[in-house]
């Protein structure tokens, strides 16, 4: 098993958000996490990435047989966890190429691979950029600064493609994207699908899941998974809304 989350409880800003969440993800699988606002979807993504604002109070997370929660954020990244941010951060004065090369080489060092020099790095990223329909000038722009919402999300997927994580967690990557951008982002994610990798897609709406077809759909309510099923669950949610699930959860 690639990722095993067991009875995870997480606090943010003093409030209990995740209240005993369990989830198993095997390599090769795509899991969608859906749920109404405030159900804890983004909290799950951020807790997995090691965000300091999210405090794990109970439970375990095992990634590739290791205790993920004991790792610093950078170690998680080097081990192969990648979170595409809901709100990518703008970093003035640091250009994309410099940043991404530093990140890639940190990951490669950790994996015992030789570091890439500037030429090798450029060769690698150029083809990825082309696939994601990104302008070459983008590499010399400061990280996310002055990017449109769509460009920022595309940049997240670009970073993911370059860093080749074992587990990608997409935190509401679809929010604010028009159909064209959504398709490009989805193509980027689909291109990464392989028997060695898994993806967790956190989303509020079903639309992204028509492009990134999940193997499993989980519905979160009040910090727990209240229902898990195949991809058809997403369509059901789209038609009926979250109300009926929340009602069921309350009765259970």
């Amino acid at each position, binding site marked *: 098993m690639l990722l095993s989350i067991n009875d995870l409880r997480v606090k943010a800003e003093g409030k209990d958000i995740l209240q005993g969440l369990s989830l198993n993800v095997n390599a090769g699988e795509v899991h969608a996490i859906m749920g109404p606002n405030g159900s804890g979807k983004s909290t799950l993504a951020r807790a997995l*990435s*090691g*965000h*300091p604002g999210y405090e794990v109070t109970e439970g375990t997370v095992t990634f590739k047989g290791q205790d993920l929660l004991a790792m*610093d*954020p*950078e170690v*998680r*990244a*080097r081990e192969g966890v*990648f*979170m595409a*941010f809901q709100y*990518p*951060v703008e*970093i*003035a*004065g*640091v250009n994309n190429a*410099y*940043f*991404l090369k*530093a*990140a*890639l080489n*940190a*990951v490669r060092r*950790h994996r015992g691979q030789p570091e890439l020099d500037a030429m090798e790095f450029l060769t690698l990223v150029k083809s990825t950029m082309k696939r994601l329909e990104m302008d070459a000038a983008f590499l010399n722009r*400061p*990280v996310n600064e002055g990017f449109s919402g769509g460009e920022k999300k595309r940049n997240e997927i670009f*970073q993911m493609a370059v*860093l080749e994580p074992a587990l990608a967690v997409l935190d509401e990557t679809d929010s604010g994207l028009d159909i064209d951008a959504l398709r490009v982002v989805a193509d980027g994610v689909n291109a990464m699908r392989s028997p060695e990798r898994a993806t967790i897609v956190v989303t509020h709406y079903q639309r992204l899941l028509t492009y990134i077809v999940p193997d499993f759909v989980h519905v979160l309510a009040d910090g727990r998974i209240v229902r898990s099923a195949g991809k058809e669950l997403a369509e059901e949610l789209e038609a009926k809304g979250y109300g009926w699930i929340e009602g069921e959860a309350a009765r259970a």
Partner: protein
Amino acid sequence: MSGADMPHASESPATSLAAASPGRAERPAPIGQTTAYAAEWERTEAARAAGQPAWLRAARRQAFDRFLDLGFPGTRLEEWRFTNVAPIAESRFPLAEPAHLTAADIEPWTFADVAIRLVFVNGYYAPALSTPAASLPHGVSLGPLGPALHHLATAGDTSLARVAPVDGHAFTALNTAFLADGASLTIAPHVAIEQPIQVLFVSSPDQRATMSHPRLLVEAGADSQARIVEVYAGTPGTMYFTNAVTEVSLGEHAVVEHCRIQLESDAAFHVGVVQVEAARSSAFRAQTFALSGALLRNDITVRMAGEGVDCVLNGLYLAMAQQLVDNHTTIDHAMPHGTSLEIFKGVLGGRSRGVFNGKIIVRQDAQQTDAKQTNRALLLTDQAMIDTKPQLEIFANDVKCTHGAAIGQLDDDAIFYLRSRGLGAQEARAVLIHAFAGDLVDGVRIPGVQTRLRDILSERLTRELSRLGETAGGRA
């Protein structure tokens, strides 16, 4: 942040210095104010008397009398409120003696692409280390000031102390009172020097904590051009006092780029006065890098004496541990159509203190002035402090004058973002600090100097960040 809640005397750099430099240069016992300086001056004067022109001796005596009148500035003076010079005033610093350094010794402070160089060790010209004559155009005179002064008959034959007069500033008066040598660059009208010129002042004290009074005199004739790199450095770990004065005059349409780098020993005191006078349509572009020293105080004044002067005055300062860096700048728009652009940035770690005071005067005649001042400080620890004050004095009515100050910490979201991609916590911080300071380093158009500055910045930040990583004082 207001200055009112700042302790100062209790944290004077001197208290930390004794501990910082064990074994070298014992800290002298405190004594009353100017007494020790008077004794040293009398001793020095007596030793120098032979062979020196009478006017020079008279000028030095006059300067010393002026220094005695002014005394060392106390913290009750507004301009010195945050910088307590008691550690300098109360110490006995003998005038430094000549020392022998090799090319290898000064290598860290020279640049492969700056071939023309004057080197002074402990204030004395070091001909063996200097390369003044390498292909200078006709009409340029570059060399030590001392021999030039000896040939003059009267004080009226030199413009020394014209742009930087002794009457207003105690440290300028003290510098002039001890003046024997220095660097002099004179450029005839219409001559453009393409290659950059370096002036390096190195301190290499003996067992004692000594002082030197470096002087740089630049006279750029009308329509001339030059690039000057002025570097102050010292043997690491040694304690000394450098009291430097730089005076620059620009003739009409002259263009001078001035890069000033302070890389003093971590235990050293440095008070530096830079006085610039710019004539009509000239351009003065300065970058000052205050990178190390226990106490660094810079007083930089640019007087825009003619119409249409273009002034860029940028600065980057680093203060770590218990260091104090104080930059006082004055841009004086005296005539119309002047533009000035000033950006100062500070990176403060440890228990360091920074002071920035940016005065901009726009006089009544200086209509159509366009002045912009920005100063930003990055505090790496909770114990670091900055006092920052823009000081705009505007007497003309048709001007554009803006200023902005910002003090902040590293952005936690940005640090997390970088870490989430695999960069270590320390590397993430370093990347962000370089991003903050990088544009000022990029502004140096001499590649070798730029690269060296970048390396020094990296090295100092790495040291500070690993220290922060080990203590609870830093921001996690």
